[in-house]
């Protein structure tokens, strides 16, 4: 598990639904984790909201599909969609190849910068959560 740190990068926050959140000032970038993309298999399509759409923490904001499965994407924080990764339309495989980098999905202008949304885990907490779930 030498890739251990690459699978659970520090500095990000994680949800029970296997999304990650990276906050810089007012803007939070969201994607799915390494574990999530591995579980889904080859991703063929990502359905994302429009720029300007409102998202609510804990509510679905889109879907991600593999050949045989479809999963909802849950917003880790509330706010308004500021940017959408349009490259995923043509290249959904980016989510598999680089889930924390080029596989980012949306950027949210967070509603409340001060208050961290409930239910978020640190890298260590999320790693433990995943390992527990696997057993």
């Amino acid at each position, binding site marked *: 598990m030498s890739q251990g740190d690459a699978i659970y990068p520090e500095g990000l926050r994680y949800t029970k639904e296997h999304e990650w959140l990276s906050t810089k000032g007012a803007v939070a970038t969201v994607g799915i984790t390494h574990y999530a993309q591995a579980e889904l298999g080859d991703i*063929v*399509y990502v*359905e994302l909201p429009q720029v300007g759409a409102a998202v609510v923490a804990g509510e679905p904001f889109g879907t991600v599909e*593999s*050949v*045989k*499965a*479809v999963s909802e994407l849950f917003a880790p924080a509330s706010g308004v969609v500021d940017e959408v990764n349009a490259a995923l339309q043509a290249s959904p495989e980016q989510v598999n190849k680089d889930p924390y980098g080029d596989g980012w999905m949306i950027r949210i202008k967070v509603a409340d910068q001060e208050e961290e949304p409930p239910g978020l885990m640190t890298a260590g907490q999320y790693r433990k959560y995943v390992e527990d779930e696997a057993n």
Partner: protein
Amino acid sequence: MAAHRYLPLSDAEREDMLRAIGLASAGDLFASIPERLRLRGALDVPGPLAEMDLVAEMAARAGENLLPDPRAQFLGAGAYRHFAPSVVDHLISRTEFYSSYTPYQPEISQGTLQAVFEYQTLICQLTGLDLSNASMYEGASTLAEGILMAERASPSGRVVLSDRLHPEYVQVVRTHLANMGIAIESFGHGKDGAADSAAARQALERKASSLVVQHPNFFGCLEEIEALAAVARQAGTTLIVVMTEPLALGLLKPPGEQGADIVLGEGQGFGVPLSYGGPYLGFLAARQSFLRQMPGRIVGEARDVDGRRGYVLTLSTREQHIRREKATSNICTNEGLCALTAAIFMAALGKSGIMELARHNRAKAAYARQRLAEARGCSIPYAAPFFNEFVVRLPVPAETAVQRLAERGLACGVPLSRYLPDPAQQRDLLVCVTEVNPRGEIDRLADELGRLA
């Protein structure tokens, strides 16, 4: 108990297998069914019949039908009598096609998958659109599916239908949409029998997810697709064109090229037996933008590990077995063999055959319409252009005419009063003429209708 011809186990094998399982008797196989629920007596069903007797029994039942000579039938209204080349039934009777399963395992189903890919292409070519699915049940429920598809793509809670759709299709749409929170409204037609695009424009002043017209419509009249498409586009609404007679596409401009966004309907006219109403074939074609909303199965091209081109059911995440209650439809088993029937019919006729047959139908219908217009007491109420169906107004109620002419061995048409309660339509008869109706029968029809007054 005598062995049955479809059951390959002999009594000895049966005993042997029971022993291998560790059961004393066949009855023990059902030990998991509560005693209280076990049937004591025999089912109240007829049989058994040896094959010879079975054929005789079924032939006797078929013989109870008193069918007029097909050449003397002028019936359309949703199902169309065309001559299917012999190769069609021959090929769909190949067991590899009709007794095979849904092609979920593509490695041993390339015959079906490629045939469906070809069918999808043929439908796109005829309709002038980008996408087709692998088939749906029949025209009416396919219209319901198309309307729901347009609503999913652009939710509005409202759909506007031409009042000249086949009334049975409207009834089916109402049944399917009953609990979906979608208001169904209609817009009217002009005196010439075609839909009124000004009325459509007015109906679209409030947002609707689709505008639906039938082409040719229930009166047999051709619609002005380009004008209606302009109205729909202006209003930001999807134009759905429904067709009950696919052969019309051999003559008419493809609605997809005239601005229709979705073209769907009944494919029975392409070689699928009349078979008293089913099994039939729903076809559904749409613009590329509807891809993710498309209901039903879709076949796509793929490469195998050796680089060979093959075909596979794809985009399955739209469907019920994956998305369950969020699926684009609940459809599972569709009309695969009927789609194959239609594809073989289209291939056998080919470009020249389809276009010539369509022109041939039109010429026959034009001749009939002319002769009926001249028949005593008869008139043609709708001036709009037609394909192979039209309405003739009789001097007596159309139902009466149907009964009287039935005694003369003629099924002269479908009375509009069967579907429309308007007393103004009591004397209207919907007449369909195809290549199977010889001139002599058309002349006889005209003579007999002329005698009604």
